[in-house]
Structures are given as structure tokens and as C-alpha cells.
């Protein structure tokens, strides 16, 4: 017995991920126990029931379409945020005078609680997808601008001078000197931009929604249906984790050339 216990302890100490799984399992067990015996089922349902009725969530009329719509909003907002952020970041970062003038303004705007103007976005863009996309863009664009500016700033002037003296065109300088240099920070910016876009789109969805997931979270909350609510939130959290992981992978992949 004693040696067996010793063996278990040794495996756990060597494999941190196993212990991590154990912690997660313990949390789920705690949740299961709490939901089964201690909390009113109107407010919390056990994870076993949530998982078992996941298919019921997805077969609820409109939920697949809502998830699709939210994913679409996230994708459009992310592409726009990165494109706009890249253009503005380059415009601000490449000229010292422009950078000194406008970078503080960008940082100031970045630090503002944008959620205070969420009602304005609804007034301007309506309660459909446009307002979610717009709110996602304004959340995601600032980290992209900031990191692009930082990335361009790290560029050694001698490289620019060298390329120019060898007769490189503007496009060639951008393609072969500026771009490779800002790739690592650009992907870091894309990762931060992704969390910004997620935050913005979900905030706008939760504020008011007629067809997106915000509509269904409100519906399930008002119906006191925690099983479906937890299932939907779980699906969205999984989506967020996957999107973040994709961007993180891309970042790790494209930052490689420096270390090679």
C-alpha cells in the first residue's frame, strides 16, 4: 500500500499537467455537489446535466444561427481591427513628428472605458450586427496600433538608410525591411486585438441583441434555465479559448525567424 501511494505521488510530482487535470476535476466535482444538493436548481445546474443537455441547447431554434452570427461578427471585427490598426499604426509610427503628436492621443483613447459609449454605438449602428462589429473594432484596434507603432520604432534607422541607398522603392522597403521587423510585435498585437474584439463584440451582444447569442443568454436568464445558459456560455468560452489559441500559435510561429 505504502509503495503504491508513493508511486502515485511520484507520478503527480513529475507530471504537473496531471495534477492540473486533477484540480479541474475537483472543481467540477465541487460544482456538481453544490448544484445537486445545496443550490436551488433554478439558479445552478450540475455540470453533468449541462453536458448531457448540450445537444438540447444547440437544437434550440435559432441558437446555431446565433453562434454563427456571433462568429461572423468576431471575424469581421477582427479583420477590420487588424487592417485599420496596421494602417494607422504605420501612419503614426513611421514619422517621428506624427508619432510624438498622435501616439499620446492613441494611448489616451486606449485607456478610456469605452463601455460608457456603448449606447451610442447602438444609436448609430442599430441593434443588428453592425453595432457589434463596430464596438469590436474600436476595442481591438488600439492594441494593434500600439504594438505596430512599438514594432516600427524598434527598427534601426541604418537598415532604412541602407535599403534606400541601394535604391529600394517604398514598397520594397516596407516588404523587406519594415514588415519582417514588426512581425513579432504585430502578432502580439493581433493576440491583444483578438481579446479586445472578443470583449467588444460580447459586450455589445450582451447589451442588446435580436439574433446573436446575447438574445439567448437574456432569454435563458429570464426563463431561469441555468442548464441551457451554462451550456451556451460554455460553448462561447470554448470558442474564445480556441480563437485565442489560434492567434497565440500564429504569434509563436511568426516570431521564430528572430531566434533562428
Amino acid at each position, binding site marked *: 500500500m505504502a509503495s503504491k501511494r508513493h508511486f502515485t505521488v511520484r507520478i503527480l510530482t513529475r507530471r504537473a499537467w496531471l*495534477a492540473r487535470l486533477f484540480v479541474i476535476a475537483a472543481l467540477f466535482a465541487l460544482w456538481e455537489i453544490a448544484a445537486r444538493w445545496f443550490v436551488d436548481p433554478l439558479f445552478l445546474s450540475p455540470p453533468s446535466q449541462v453536458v448531457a443537455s448540450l445537444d438540447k441547447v444547440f437544437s434550440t431554434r435559432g441558437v446555431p444561427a446565433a453562434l454563427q452570427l456571433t462568429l461572423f461578427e468576431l471575424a469581421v471585427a477582427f479583420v477590420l481591427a487588424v487592417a485599420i490598426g496596421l494602417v494607422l499604426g504605420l501612419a503614426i509610427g513611421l514619422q517621428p513628428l506624427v508619432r510624438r503628436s498622435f501616439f499620446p492621443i492613441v494611448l489616451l483613447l486606449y485607456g*478610456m472605458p469605452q463601455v460608457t459609449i456603448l449606447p451610442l454605438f447602438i444609436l448609430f449602428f442599430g441593434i443588428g450586427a453592425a453595432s457589434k462589429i463596430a464596438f469590436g473594432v474600436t476595442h481591438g484596434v488600439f492594441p494593434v496600433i500600439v504594438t505596430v507603432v512599438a514594432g516600427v520604432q524598434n527598427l534601426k534607422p541604418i537598415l532604412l538608410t541602407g535599403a534606400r541607398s541601394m535604391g529600394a522603392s517604398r514598397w520594397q522597403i516596407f516588404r523587406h525591411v519594415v514588415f519582417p521587423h514588426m512581425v513579432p510585435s504585430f502578432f502580439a498585437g493581433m493576440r491583444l486585438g483578438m481579446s479586445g474584439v472578443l470583449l467588444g463584440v460580447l459586450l455589445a451582444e450582451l447589451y442588446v441583441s435580436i439574433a446573436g447569442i446575447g438574445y439567448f443568454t437574456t432569454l435563458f436568464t429570464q426563463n431561469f434555465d441555468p442548464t441551457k445558459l451554462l451550456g451556451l456560455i460554455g460553448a462561447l468560452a470554448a470558442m474564445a479559448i480556441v480563437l485565442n489559441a489560434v492567434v497565440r500559435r500564429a504569434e509563436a510561429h511568426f516570431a521564430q525567424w528572430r531566434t533562428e
Partner: protein
Amino acid sequence: MAGDAAARRDRGALASRLIQAGFLVGLVVVWYLAATRWGVNRLLLPNPVAVYDNLLDILRSGEFIDDLETTLGELAIAFAISVAGGLTLGYLISRSAYWIKVFEPLFAAIYSIPIILFLPLFVLFFGLGPASKIALGASISFFPIVINTIAGFGHVDPLFVTAARSMGASDYHLFRHVLLPAASPVILTGLRMGFTTALLSIIGSETLASLAGLGHRIVHLAEAMEMARMFAYVVFVIAIAVTLNAVVSALEARGKRN
């Protein structure tokens, strides 16, 4: 030569200040013209003069006090909870390299989920009152604090610890004179991030679902189509948020110097 360079730098700084001022003035002028001359709907863009009048009225009448108290009260409780929980748990986990390996990736993974997703759940549990905002604010700001506390205490150079021990430092002395000074810059950054996110998530959750507070006031005015007053409140809230964040950043910088 040096004087020339300095003069040029001063001129550059002056030029960028002028551009900044010009940009902001231009923004207000465009806003004014759009609202008065170009016929942008008053419901979308109120006259900046009306916004200014409303702001003065809000400040003079003191009608903001109740909402401000609600929001700041929620913020204080949420931040206190996340600081107490984050520092304690972070310190305990940081005492063992093994626990760090177990918990750090876990917290980092949860941190990457937009926790605002769980607001409907918190509302279901705690109702529309302050409790759901406190719960959300505390659980969002817990993560930067605990992650930075682990990073701060967990990565103190072992050489320092061994040296202090061999010179006969007690547990308390080790903590007070070695661990704390080495960890505090990282922890202070975590506390600042935690504060900023707590503030943001509390105003955000008030905007989404609540009965009182500054975020609720803004939504209420927007729904009543009182745009000038709503803009005035937006300006007011942004000013408060920027001030609070500046104060916290200053405290962070001061704490790091000591």
C-alpha cells in the same frame, strides 16, 4: 552643437504639442459644426454647448453623488476581495515550484476567456443589484493579481533566499526583507491591472444590467433619448476613470521607487 540639438528637440516637442492641441480643437469644431450646421440629427449628436451646460448642471446639482457612491462602493468591495484572494492564493501557490507549474497555466487559460460572458450567470445568482457587479468585478480582477503575485514571489532569485537563510534570517525576516522587496514591482503592476479591469468591468456590468450606478445612469439617459445629458455623463465618467487610473499608476510608480 549640443545647444542646437536641444533647441531642435524643444521645437519638435512644441510642434507636437501644437498639433495635439490643434487636433483636439478641430475635433470639437467639427462636432459643433456637425451638430449645428450640417444637420446631423440631434438624437445622434447633441450640440457640444448643450453637453457643456448639462455637465455644469450635473456637477452643480450634485445629482451624480448617489450613482457615484454606488459605483465606487462596488469597485472598492470588488477590488478588496480580489486583492485579498489574489495575494493570499498567489503567495501560497508561489511557495512551491510544483504548485506554480500546476496553477499558473490554469489561471492564464481562464484569464484569456472574456469573463464578461458570465455576467448573465452572475445576474441569475446575485440579482440585478450591486452584488452581481461586485462578483463580476472581483472575479475579473482576481486573475491579473494572482498571476502577477505568483510571478513576483515565485521568481525571486534562490541565491538571495539561500544567502539570507545562511545568515540566519527568520521566516518573517526573509519575507519582509528579501521576498517582498524582490516581488513587489511585479505585484504592484498586477494590482494596477486588477484595479483598471475591476473599474472597467463594474461600469460595463452596470451598463449591461443594473438598477443603479454611473453605467446605469448613462444607459437610462440613452434610452430616454436625453442625448446632451448622456454625453455629459459620459464625459464625467471618463474623467473619473482617467483620474482614478492616473492615481493608481502614480501609486504604482511610487511603490516601485521605494
